[in-house]
């Protein structure tokens, strides 16, 4: 045994030398050359005339693609340019991409819009929102047989929000909880499910005692029978607040901005083709939006210490 180890050690030394001489270094050198070549060609390729839209991932990503690709096609016709939908898996990444001009327009929640506005020094602009977004709500759910009947019963339970960046899944539920006298950080054991539908599934599965989510997603899940209303019940519905909007990045031309607003506002429920798009967005019609609608959300974020005071 010792002899064979000795041989192995020697052989290792020999191979080591043969490898150090070329195999390794050769491939590394060619990799570097390739890198240099790429950087030369890369710098010549600049952004083309494509218009890139994205959305915060408040639902499962395939659901988002189903929702937004018809919208991209519609905008493509209305703007007469290529429009592509860029799927993103993280809220913060969507904000960051919009603020650093890597996407041209994004479907944001109230809170993510406030974040984007702050991070771009107010340069991004909300242009349209659904009529429904003027009066948005969140629902709090628990298991049917749970002892939780009101917000006051939540002390000491496991509670899940959606994504930390969500307006209707985190910020506003947190805001209304503290208005009802619950100290979220100390009275609850908090988790984040990541998305509204995930919150519903987490509560249904008994993984947490209760959770808060977007009322629209809740209604959709109930209508499509994706959740069992025998197992789950709503025990609190929040007051109304402004939520989602389409926000454009800074530096888009005034003409393009107007074309976008017109395209959204002219979507009509009575037109069968438009109806498909509106239904997918769960909207009856789009209306112009403005920054001042989101002052309430901004204040709530300041109070919850989820937005730094400038």
């Amino acid at each position: 045994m010792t002899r064979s180890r000795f041989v192995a050690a020697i052989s290792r030394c020999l191979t080591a030398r043969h490898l150090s001489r070329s195999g390794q270094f050769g491939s590394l050198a060619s990799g570097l050359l390739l890198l240099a070549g790429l950087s030369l060609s890369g710098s010549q390729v600049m952004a083309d005339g494509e218009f890139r839209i994205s959305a915060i991932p408040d639902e499962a990503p395939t659901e988002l693609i189903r929702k937004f690709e018809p919208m991209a096609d519609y905008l493509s016709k209305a703007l007469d340019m290529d429009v592509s939908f860029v799927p993103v898996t993280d809220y913060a990444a969507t904000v960051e991409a919009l603020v650093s001009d890597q996407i041209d327009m994004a479907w944001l929640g109230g809170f993510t819009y406030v974040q984007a506005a702050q991070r771009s020094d107010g340069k991004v602009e909300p242009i349209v929102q659904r009529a429904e977004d003027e009066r948005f709500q969140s629902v709090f759910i628990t298991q049917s047989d749970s002892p939780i009947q009101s917000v006051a019963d939540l002390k000491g339970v496991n509670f899940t929000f959606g994504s930390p960046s969500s307006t209707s899944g985190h910020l506003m539920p947190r805001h209304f909880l503290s208005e009802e006298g619950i100290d979220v950080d100390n009275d609850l054991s908090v988790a984040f499910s990541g998305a509204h539908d995930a919150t519903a599934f987490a509560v249904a599965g008994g993984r947490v005692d209760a959770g808060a989510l977007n009322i629209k997603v809740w209604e959709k899940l109930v209508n499509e029978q994706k959740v069992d209303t025998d197992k789950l019940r709503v025990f609190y519905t929040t007051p109304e607040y402004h939520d989602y909007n389409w926000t454009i990045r800074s530096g888009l031309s005034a003409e393009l901005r107007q074309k976008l607003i017109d395209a959204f506002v002219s979507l009509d429920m009575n037109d069968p083709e438009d109806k498909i798009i509106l239904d997918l967005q769960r909207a009856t019609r789009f209306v112009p939006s403005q920054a001042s609608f989101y002052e309430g959300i901004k204040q709530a974020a300041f109070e919850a210490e989820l937005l730094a005071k400038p």
Partner: protein
Amino acid sequence: MTCIVGMKLKSEPDTTQLALRLRDPERIGRAWISFGVLLLLFASLAGSQFNPAILLDHDSLSTAADFFDTFWPPRSDADFLRRLFDASVVTVSIATVATVLAMIVATPLAVAITSRLSLSARGRRMKTPPRLLRGTLRGVLLFLRSVPELIWALLFVGVTGLGATAGIMGLLITNIGILAKNYAEIIESGEATVTGHMLDNGNGRCKTLLHATLPQCLPELLSYSIYRWECTLRTSVVLGFVGAGGLGQELLISIRQLASPEVFSIILVFVLLVSVADAISNSLRRQLSQSATQHADQTAGASDTDNDSGPSARWQGQLGKASSLLRRWGRPCLVGLAVLACFNAVDWQLEQWLRPSSFARTREFIQGFFPPDLSAGLWQRLAGDALETLSMAFAGTALASIVAIVLSYVLFIVNLRGAGLFVRLLTSALHLLQIVLRSVPELVWAMLLIIVAGIGPFTGTLALFLASVGVLSRLYSECLDNQDDAPLENLVANGSSLGLAPLWSTLMQARSQLISYSLYRWEHNLRAATLMGIVGAGGVGQELYLRLSVFQFDKVAACVVVIVVLVALADSISHFLRHRYAPTV
């Protein structure tokens, strides 16, 4: 240790006198250590809210049943498979590029921090300036590897936008920290005499490095790099969060949708990828030792053909030379080509890099971290989270070590016995289980287990436990197989039972290596535990992810400080223990 002594006494009751004389002289110290470890284990089980009863709870069982019921058949339509194939290519490319680039950067760093090549340290204490320099560099490397990949990646999202590049940079920076540290450890654990003699004889450090240090350690350095590549393949999952693409992102999407047939397909592909990676790395390592033997044979063969001067023989010699060239260079060339292909497959997004606004954003991003938030409320929460993280890592590793040692011991004995069909089937089933357990990344285990075990640190602990059982049982098995058989054969020849004899020979020979494997795994698990909170599985990661999501970088900085301290603590404790109790490795 004491329980082993107990067993020995029971098995030989009539030789009490002899047993008394042979009593372990260090038994008291060892008993204290065992006691301390047990105490820590119970504390950490409590700290991680360890409660297996949850797994049998009716509600969680039915949810799990709903999810896993639809696991079979895995989704396998052509469209989806093509998507998975593309995603696999992206994953492999990202991991390869990040590893290769990290190897290039880490090598000089490792050379710089190792004390082996210090001139002032020859035969005396190292002088202060070089010691300070090395210390600083080590600190920087520690920082690089303890800040989670995700944070580095998000840093680059500001520069290059969403996509593969940000993911690569995240993996690259962490890999540089890990590779440089381990390269330096490998260099320092190698034979010191040749390097020392060369330096003492007045050779330059560069020359010494190239002629002594590097050739000695290269096989081990390469093996470790290949192993790191495998790990990178698995960690790349977490970068699905920044849209780095690849299998990780697909998996994240499917799990969030609870689309179990897709999850199953992706996990199968993952297992396949890691197995292939494993096979490739084995074959490369085998070549490292084989081609050297061939080299020796060939030299011997060449002297034979010299005697035979016929032209056909010479022709044959040429042919033999060509084929041996192919054999020697074939695989390294293939690897080189594959690496090039990976560089080519990556979408570098270079036009994004060169925009001046990107640099401004990065500066802003970094400035946001300073000064870190020091508010009492946050730090109170973080202290609790830190304890939870430590508990998760310790409980996961300790439980996994126990299960892994039993598993590998049983496998070892079964192999010794050379057994029938049933046992062979059982061992292959165990091997398969090992592969599955260690191919699936911890974070993915956590996402799957959350469906059964719910949100909280228990899920994170289970996830770390499962992945670690896979890794440790394999390492333990290899380690037991590599021990010298002579003591075991002697024991068996003198009448010891085949089932217990390895306890006294093989296991004892391997013990320091086993301990050091567990310690390495603990370090690894601590890093992994800091990220579990991202999916709701406990620890400091949840606060980190929350604060990242709401762009409060001063609070993120506080989380990062906690993580860096935890990782540094684990590193130094593990380093100390390995040198104190496992000095052979």
